[in-house]
């Protein structure tokens, strides 16, 4: 398995994990770490907006949908209004088409159903043209 994981160590990509669930935060942080992507973690959409207001910027944002204070749809819309052009991938357990559509229309670049795995994350990177063959 380790031999099949693409190395992005040269790419210097950065990412932001936006999720209120502690288990998911830990997993998504580690998944990104495993692919050599430095990442920060915040607990909800408002914190994601705040971190961008403070001047931070990321290549990729993994955005959960259901969060307190500000959910993923609201946060995605807000970030796009602010002119943030980072790639945003929605990750959620919601599977109904209309829910996915609403999330995509908020400004996502890609979407994956949870639980996130290495192969799903690689798929996101592929879809968003981040994948680098080493």
């Amino acid at each position, binding site marked *: *398995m*380790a031999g099949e994981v693409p190395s992005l160590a040269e790419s210097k990509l950065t990412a932001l994990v936006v999720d*209120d*669930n*502690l*288990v*998911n935060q*830990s*997993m998504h942080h*580690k*998944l990104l770490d*495993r692919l050599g992507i430095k990442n920060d973690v915040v607990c909800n959409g408002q914190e994601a907006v705040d971190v961008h207001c403070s001047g931070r910027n990321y290549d990729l944002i993994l955005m959960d949908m*259901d969060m307190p204070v500000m959910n993923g749809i609201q946060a995605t819309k807000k970030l796009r209004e602010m002119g943030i052009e980072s790639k945003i991938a929605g990750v959620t*357990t919601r599977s109904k088409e209309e829910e996915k559509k609403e999330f995509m229309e908020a400004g996502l670049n890609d979407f994956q159903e*949870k*639980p*996130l*795995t*290495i192969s799903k994350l690689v798929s996101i990177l592929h879809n968003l043209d981040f994948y680098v063959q080493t």
Partner: protein
Amino acid sequence: MQRQVALIKQSLFDQGYLDEQFVELEELQDDANPNFVEEVATLYFKDSARLISNIEQALERGSFDFNRLDNYMHQFKGSSTSIGASKVKTECTMFREYCRVGNAEVFSLFRTCDECRCLRTFKQLKKEHATLRKKLEQYFQASK
């Protein structure tokens, strides 16, 4: 000892307590984080204990707030899915379905039936959760 570890793990999968997502978790464990799986499991049980307590308090209050209960269960299901806790995840799904039906129910008698189903499902969920916790503790202990 290795054989005992393998047997405990196999039985967790064979009995449906864990699914392939747990394997994904194990794939993330490496020399930099040699206890990653146990750390995530510890996080899960701490978080789920909090959710169980919240749900119990909500149920003790007597009035079934299906929306609040569903919200707690959504979080519980999310964590359980991420760690591969298959049986617990199934009970969460059932509980949420009874919440959904109960929330839409107009007749109080049928609503009471949904409340009973919620209580029964929650009891089963706590049982599966406690069993998983015990078995995983054995697994991690044997792995040391």
